[in-house]
């Protein structure tokens, strides 16, 4: 029996979410762990996969731009070659595009947004996924011989457990790439929200874009990403990439600090699975306090400078 993990490469490195997927595969304890890595990466970058348990790493550098068809074909081919009963993919934007295609190729049942290790139930396997934008969980019973799981990023911790880590060349059958990449615009030097473990977020209570310096400074001191509520991105105070919630990004960081955000149900839908939630709001009745672990009732413009100062002090002592 074996498990195949899709290892996503970005800028020559294996993404953290893919390392989580390898750790997850290790925890499943269901056979040899193979990883398939598509794109340019040197052996030391690929060896990261071994650190968390990959026994064999199938690598092809031939993939320079992303196309869901060519990626899915290569992943499915690797899955067939190593007889994988499970294909584990992190549900990043790339993962979302390839996982269903891989499932069709392998006639596999697919569950996406997975937050648990599969459990056997008779001849089926059951995994838990989040649904209703974090307002519930569903146990999905998978009734097929091969199964594809798309994991929610940041749901599983990295656990070192060395695997053999043998790197083997993959030469997948060539499949026509029908999409052309024109331009990639990525905010550089910032932690991508979907991967961030700590997030500092601001809402309409911040009054205007000129006040975001405080949010950014606190985030910078803590090593956090920044986020915002929908009206804030609608008014162009912040870019839409930062908007979290039902119609924005869903995140699951270890810490979410909400400043001047009321806590409307559609906002909570994107952040309620955060491990620890802090609400800062001048209105003691703000709904955010109902789901927060820590609350500060007060004016953000007085609270944030104190937090920045305390965080700086904490960081300087920690170093």
């Amino acid at each position, binding site marked *: 029996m074996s498990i195949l993990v899709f290892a996503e490469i970005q800028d020559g490195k294996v993404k953290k979410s893919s390392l989580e997927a390898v750790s997850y595969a290790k925890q499943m304890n269901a056979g040899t762990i193979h990883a398939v890595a598509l794109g340019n990466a040197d052996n030391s970058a690929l060896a990261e996969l071994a650190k968390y348990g990959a026994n064999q790493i199938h690598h092809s550098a031939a993939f320079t731009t992303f*196309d*869901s068809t060519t990626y*899915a074909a290569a992943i499915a081919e690797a899955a067939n070659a190593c007889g994988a009963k499970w294909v584990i993919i992190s549900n990043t*934007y790339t993962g*979302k*595009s*390839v*996982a*269903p295609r891989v*499932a069709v*190729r392998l006639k596999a*049942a*697919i*569950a*996406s947004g997975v937050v648990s290790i599969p459990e056997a*139930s008779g001849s089926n396997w059951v995994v838990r*996924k989040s*649904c*209703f934008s*974090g307002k*519930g969980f*569903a*146990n*999905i*019973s998978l*009734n097929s011989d091969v199964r594809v799981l798309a994991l929610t990023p940041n749901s599983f911790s990295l656990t070192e457990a060395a695997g053999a880590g043998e790197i083997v060349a993959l030469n997948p059958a060539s499949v026509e790439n*029908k*999409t052309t*990449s*024109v331009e*990639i*615009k*990525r*905010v550089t030097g910032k932690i991508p*929200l*979907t991967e961030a473990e*700590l997030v500092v977020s601001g809402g309409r209570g911040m009054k205007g874009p000129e006040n975001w310096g405080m949010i950014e400074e606190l985030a910078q001191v803590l090593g956090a990403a920044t986020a915002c509520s929908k009206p804030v991105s609608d008014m162009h105070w912040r870019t*839409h*990439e930062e908007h979290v919630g039902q119609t*924005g990004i869903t995140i699951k960081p270890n*810490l979410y600090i909400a400043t001047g955000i009321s806590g409307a*149900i*559609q906002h909570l839908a994107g952040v309620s699975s955060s491990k*620890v939630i802090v609400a800062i709001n001048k209105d003691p009745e703000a709904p955010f306090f*109902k789901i*927060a*672990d*820590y*609350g*500060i*009732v*007060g004016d953000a413009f*007085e*609270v944030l400078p104190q*937090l920045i*100062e*305390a*965080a700086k*002090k*904490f960081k300087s002592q920690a170093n």
Partner: protein
Amino acid sequence: MKILVCISNVPDTTTKVSFTDNNTKFNTAGVQYIINPYDELALTRALELTEKNGGEVTVINVGLVDTEANIRKALAIGANDAIRINANPEDGYFVAEQIAAAVKSEGYDVIFTGRESIDYNSGIVGGLLAEILNLPLINVVSKLEIEGGIVTADRDIDGGKETVKVATPCVISAQKELTEPRIPNMRGIMAARTKPLKVVEPSGSNALSNISAFEMPKPKGDCKYIDAANAGHLIDLLHNEAKVI
């Protein structure tokens, strides 16, 4: 240009979620159903494109008769006609196979889905459909133009966006910002009553998964308050108590 828009029927965004029958069924009592918001954006963009370049927009739904209210709403917003595949949408695989079987020979230039349904948040039907029909997929698209059979689209990637080009036919999944939703007007609502809504029976195909149970998220413990005058104390608590920094 022929455009197909897949629409799913979902509980309204303010729904209080609860489960019945020993946590095996979603409690639909008092729930208002809407067109999945991403599908509504896809529909509106499809209408804008056909208004500019000529063509027709068909909406399709896999669902039982109770979804017809929202199919009529899609017609009122402006779709030319509609197809309902008369089956309970068992799982994403089943839905994609039904849609694929119904539209395979129809020659749609663009097939739209939403990036995900806001109920089960799977985001898989577009990809499944693209693979079954052997079409390219551009997923999570926030901007889209079509000219001379070439689609130029912005798709979300981790930490940014990528602009890509692809020739039609293709599958596109809609993300917010694609356009602004339209509210149906009286004329649209009147016209929708007589627009064709074809009901077809499902073709043989099996779901590969099912929901065996639901669970509510664990209730949060009480909120611990920190005095605003001593806000810096929060940093200690986050380090020593919550252990997240």
